[in-house]
C-alpha cells in the first residue's frame, strides 16, 4: 500500500497554493495537502500536523520563507523543505544551501514540483527499511 504523506504548503497567494496543490495531487493523488498563508500560521500548522514535506513561498508578509525554513529546521533536521519562488538569486541560494533547503521555481509546473517530491520521497524512504 502506498504510504500517505502530508505536504505543508505555506504561501500568501491563493493562486500559488492552488497550483501547488494541483501539482502535488498530480504526483500522488493520495497525498494530503495542508496550507497556511503566512509564516506564523505555517509554524503553528507544522507543529499541529507534522507533515512529511514542506514547500514555502519566499516572499511573504511577516517572516520570509527562509526564516520560516530556519525555524522548521531547528525542529526537524531532516525533513525535506523547498523554497518556492521565481526570485532565485545567488544570495538566497547560498542561504538555502546552508539550511539544506531545495528550490522549486515559480511558475510551478507538475514537472518541477514532481521532481522535488520524488527527491524528497527518496530522502525519506532512505531512512526507512525497504519493503
Amino acid at each position: 500500500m502506498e504510504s500517505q504523506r502530508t505536504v505543508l504548503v505555506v504561501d500568501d497567494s491563493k493562486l500559488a497554493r492552488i497550483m501547488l496543490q494541483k501539482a502535488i495531487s498530480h504526483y500522488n493523488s493520495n497525498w494530503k495537502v495542508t496550507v497556511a498563508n503566512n509564516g506564523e500560521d505555517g509554524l503553528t500548522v507544522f507543529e499541529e500536523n507534522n507533515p512529511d514535506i514542506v514547500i514555502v513561498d519566499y516572499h511573504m508578509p511577516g517572516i520570509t520563507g527562509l526564516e520560516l525554513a530556519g525555524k522548521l529546521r531547528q525542529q526537524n533536521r531532516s525533513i525535506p523543505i523547498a523554497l518556492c519562488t521565481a526570485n532565485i538569486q545567488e544570495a538566497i541560494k547560498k542561504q538555502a544551501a546552508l539550511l539544506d533547503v531545495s528550490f522549486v521555481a515559480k511558475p510551478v509546473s507538475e514537472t518541477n514540483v514532481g521532481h522535488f517530491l520524488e527527491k524528497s520521497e527518496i530522502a525519506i524512504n532512505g531512512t526507512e527499511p525497504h519493503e
Partner: protein
Amino acid sequence: MNEFSRLSWSGDQVDALTEIMNIGIGVAAKNLSEMVAEEVFLSIPEIRLVSRSNISEELLSQNPEGMSFVFQDFCGSINGRSALIFPIKKSFNLVKALLNNVVADDEMTEMEQEALSEVGNVILNACIATLADTLDLHMEVEIPQYVRGGAVNVLLAGDDVLDHSRTNLFCAVNFKTHQSGIDGYVLFLLELPSVKKLRISLEQFLQKIM
C-alpha cells in the same frame, strides 16, 4: 480591493494577478541580480486602480528631482505600457553596477542610454512574458524607449492624449540593491478596456486550474 470590486473583480482574481506579477518580477529580479552581481530586494507588488493624475502626483513626489525611465508598450490581447523608473540621480548607479567598473566614469554617461535600455528590456520582458505566458495572452511588445529626465506626461501619455480623469490599472514594484545603491521601480499601466480583458483572461485561467 474596493476599487476592484467596483469593477466586478473577485478576490481570487486580484490574488491571481498579484501572484502572476510577483512571479514575473521575481524572474526579472533574478535576471537583474545576475547582471549586477548583487542581491536585488523587491517590494510586494502594489496593484491599484487609480486615476492618471494620482499616479502623476505620486511619481512626482517620489522623484522630486526628476526621473529617468525606459518604457515598452505592448498591444494585442491587452494594451498597455510597462516602464522601469529611476530617480534621475540613481540611474547612474545602475549603469555603474552593470558595467562592473570596467568602463571609465565619463564613458558611462554615454552608455547610460544603452545600458538602461537593455536592462529595461530584460526586466520588462520578464514581467510581460510571465503575464502573457501564464494567461495565454497574445501580445506584441515594442522595443524599449529611454527617456532621461522625462516629464511625467511623457511616461503616462502613451498614444492617447493625457486625460487626467482616466483610470488605470497601476502596478508598481520597487527594487533596490544595498551595495551599489540601485533604487527604482517597475510600473505597469493598463487602460480600463484592457483591465476588463485582463479580468476575463484571469477568470479563464482560474477556471482552467480549479
